[in-house]
Every structure is written in C-alpha cells, then in structure tokens.
C-alpha cells in the first residue's frame, strides 16, 4: 500500500523541479543533460545542505569538545549511518569515506595488496574503467602478482566460461565493475561473487555506475568490497565510499598515515585507530560526507523500482529512435543493460557529432570514456554516450534525436 503511494508520486516534472540546473540554458537552448554517467546533477536539498554546513556548522570533527565540533561530528557520523542503512551494510564502521571510487579502489589495491605475495592472481574484466585497471597494474608491479582479464563478447557481455577457467586457488581478488560506464552492461555479480568465494577469492565491485540506478544490498550481495562516488549519486564531488567487510578491513594495514587514523603516537611506535578511522587519515571532506548523506536520503525517498522502469523506458526509446538512422551502430547490446546508450555512426567522428549536439544545448560524452582497452576491442576511436538519469524525459530524447538528425545532415 505504502509502496503504491510512493510509485504514484513518481512524477518526472515534479522531480525536475528539485534540480535547479535543469532550468538553465546553454547557447540559448534549454539544457538537455545526458551526461549522467560522468556526473549527476544535484537536487536543491543537497545544494542547501552544503550552504547550511558552511553557514552554520563548519568545524573540524572527532577533535574538539566545543559545540560546533560536536555538531559536525554527529552529522558526519549520521551520514555514515544513512549510507550504511541504504546499502544495508552490517556495521557503520564498514563504511569508509574516501575521495571517490578511484580513491577507494586505490585504497584496496594498496592495503589489501600488502597482504598478497608474488604469484597471487587478480582478475579484472575487459570492460573496466581505467580506475579499476591501473591501480591493479601498479599493485601487481609492486608485489609480483599476476593480472588476468575476463574477455567480453561483441554484445558487451562477460564471457563467463573464460572467467570460470581463470579461477583457481591462486586467485586472491576479483575486481569487476557492477555496471559498465561505456556499455551499460549489468554484470552477473551474484554469480561472480559466489564462484569467487568458492576459491577463497575476495570480490570488489566498482559501483560507480550502479548505486544510482538500482538497489544494492551489501549483505545480500555478499561482496567483500564495494566502491562508489558521491557525485554520481546526486551528492557532491570529492567524496565517495569504500564498503568493506569488517573482518577483512581489520586485517588490512592502513593506507595513509596522519591525524585521526592513530590510537597513540610515540617516536618509537604508533598504534592505529579502529575502523573506520584507520582508513581515514587527516581532516576528511566533512561537508562532502554530510551532504552525500543528504543525497542518499533524497534518493531513499524515491521509489527505486519506478526510477529503474522510467530509466529503462528512456534508454529503450532512445535506442529504437537512434536505430532508425542509417549507419547507426549501438555499442553495447548486452542482455541486461542500464540507461546508457553508446553509439557511433558510419563515417562520422564522435567528436564532430558531440560538438554539434553541444551547440544545440545537449550534453553528451564523446571519446573513450576512460576505457581505452574496451575501445580497442571494438576497434573504434570512441563513442557518443547518452546516459540518462531519472530526471530525464522522453521529450528531451525527441529533441536529442532531431539534433542528431540535423547534425548528421551537416556532417554527411
């Protein structure tokens, strides 16, 4: 009954009112923002929370006995709990604030990496963002570990039989993206987690593209690490989260040294603070953490099922319309996809089309999307990517399609 009521209140026009930037224009045209995969826009409540923090509550946390410090600390720790509840982590100390997804993955690559030895194997996939490739390459170089890559097929699905044959007792960690930023593929992470655990391997999910589109439940998924960025989930930039299981995090050495992460410091020996502070050296992005909490609270008031079906409808509609153009090639046609449409057009450079769309007020991403190995696999220089959020509309897609048509006429 309550759920029905929430669904009935999913009104895209009402939601758009929450996002002030959607009212602006660029080059004299109403802004159409289809670059949500790169970053999401912020609702007024988040913008207000940032303002309120610096106007009313700014203070350093975990340090002072004074009123403001206590207040800021309480808000920061409440934000951690909001995130814990949203992702259904067992404990709040399993939620570690980072600078973002890249920072979270680097933390694991360094710290968990320290527990590995030469010859141990890490498995990633061919569709990873550079953020989930390079930290592992650096770690493998440092520790003498071996990096293996799950290949994909032409549709953009992981070839799971290849993954099966890679798994062995040497596999220590499987680090894969939950959803591909370039292709939109939703990976079978439940299967990956189950199979990896049978070999005693830990699993890290790059959740940068998933938490804003679906419900993620840490206890149900049973992944060992999950990383995401605040700015892609309607929160501020410069803040993100690493979720990790407590028993694993407890065994990992600190990543960076500094204030807040220590229990006692002497020149002879320093003992480290407990979780989550062990991994949060120095004054953190306090406002970022608090306002990420606000963003997650905002999201939790919407019905994720309605969001998903709205976004799916947008993506299917856009794909169908785009496919009517001659020479159109959709890159990424996996069985399960999120609201990302990546495409190229025969004889048209993505940069040219992207530039002309921009001049018509439409923000899309062009290029390799930080997934160069993936572009090499498809033998293309890059794609044009339209990535939709729940505040986008079919009317915007109609305008986008007309703009593509006009651009192609000019370029051909």
């Amino acid at each position, binding site marked *: 009954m309550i759920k029905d009521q929430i669904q009935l209140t999913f009104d895209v026009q009402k939601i758009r009112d929450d996002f002030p930037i959607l009212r602006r224009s660029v080059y004299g045209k109403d802004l159409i923002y289809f670059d949500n995969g790169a970053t999401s826009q912020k609702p007024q409540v988040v913008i207000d929370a940032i303002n309120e923090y610096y106007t009313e509550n700014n203070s350093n946390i975990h340090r002072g006995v004074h009123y403001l410090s206590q207040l800021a600390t309480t808000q920061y720790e409440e934000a951690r709990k909001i995130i814990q509840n949203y992702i259904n982590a067992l404990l709040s100390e399993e939620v570690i604030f980072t600078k973002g997804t890249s920072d979270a993955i680097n933390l694991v690559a360094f710290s968990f990496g320290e527990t590995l030895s030469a010859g141990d194997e890490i498995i990633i996939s061919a569709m990873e963002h550079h953020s989930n490739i390079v930290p592992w390459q650096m770690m493998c170089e440092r520790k003498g570990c071996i990096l293996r890559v799950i290949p994909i097929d032409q549709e953009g699905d992981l070839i799971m039989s290849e993954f099966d044959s890679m798994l062995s007792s040497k596999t220590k960690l499987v680090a894969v993206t939950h959803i591909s930023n370039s292709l939109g593929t939703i990976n079978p992470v439940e299967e990956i987690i189950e199979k990896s655990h049978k070999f005693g391997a830990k699993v890290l999910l790059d959740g940068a593209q998933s938490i804003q589109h679906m419900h993620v439940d840490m206890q149900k998924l049973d992944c060992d690490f999950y990383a995401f960025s605040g700015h892609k989930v309607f929160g501020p930039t410069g803040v993100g989260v690493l979720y990790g299981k407590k028993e694993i995090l407890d065994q990992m050495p600190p990543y960076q040294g500094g204030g807040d992460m220590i229990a006692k410091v002497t020149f002879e020996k320093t003992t480290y603070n407990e979780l989550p502070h062990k991994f949060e050296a120095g004054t953190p992005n306090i406002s970022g953490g608090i306002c990420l909490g606000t963003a997650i609270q905002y999201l939790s008031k919407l019905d994720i099922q309605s969001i998903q079906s709205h976004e799916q409808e947008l993506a299917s509609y856009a794909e169908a319309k785009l496919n009517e153009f001659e020479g159109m090639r959709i890159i990424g046609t996996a069985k399960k996809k999120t609201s990302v449409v990546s495409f190229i057009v025969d004889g048209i450079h993505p940069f*040219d089309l992207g*530039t*002309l769309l921009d001049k018509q007020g439409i923000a899309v991403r062009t290029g390799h999307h930080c997934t160069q190995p993936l572009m090499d696999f498809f033998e293309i220089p890059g794609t044009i990517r339209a990535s939709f959020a729940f505040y986008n509309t079919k009317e915007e897609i109609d305008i986008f399609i007309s703009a593509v048509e006009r651009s192609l006429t*000019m370029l051909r």
Partner: protein
Amino acid sequence: MTLAEKEQEIIDEFAIYDDWMDKYEYIIELGKDLPKISDDKKTDDRLIEGCQSRVWLALDIEDGKVKFSADSDAIITKGIIGLLIRVLNNETAKSVATAELNFIKEIGLHEHLSPTRSNGLASMVNKMKMSALKSL
C-alpha cells in the same frame, strides 16, 4: 596580405553568423575543402594524439616561407586547421612562432584551442610554432 589582415578577413567572414550552427556549418565546409595530406605524410612522428580527435601536421619551407599541411580524423577539427593554415601559410617562420592568433577567440572558437578540449588543436598550434622556430 599581412597576417593581421588575414585574421581580420576571417573575423569579417564569421561576423555574418549569429547562430552557432551556421558557424559550424561553415567550419564543416572548410574542413571538407581542406586539401588532404598524402598518406605517406601521415606518419607517427607527424601525429598529434588528442583524447578526442587526432591531427597530423607536416611542415615545408619554400623560399623562406612556411607551408603547413595538416589533416584530422574529425571534420570540425579539420575546419579549424584550415583557418589556422590560411593565416599562417606563406608567413616567415618568425611570424608563425610569434603569432598570437587572436582571431580564434574573436570568432568564438577559443574553446577548441583550450588544452582541456583534448582535440589535438592546442598541441597542434604549439607544434606549428615550435617547428617554425626550429626551422629558423
């Protein structure tokens, strides 16, 4: 025609367009008209790798005057290259090296020359000036 006169000529040409798309229509035509550079000149040492598009640049000196030829895989990039070549070709190496190219800003295309645009054009202008300097 002096370098400054060539720049002014382009500024005047663009002054008639008040719509961005018309401006780009013109740039695309310029890109289509840019003489192709021969494939044997599209070598790796002439390639300027941008994040978004790629540019090949070749330089010849004839009678003390600079002759650039260039190509790109993106047509808008080619159009802007065409404008740069029109201004810089047949100038002395010294004028090329010190050219400020303010016309790009005047016609509203400076975003394409910003290093953040990653289309290879900013690097191309640098390389044009550097190779002109080297030839001195």
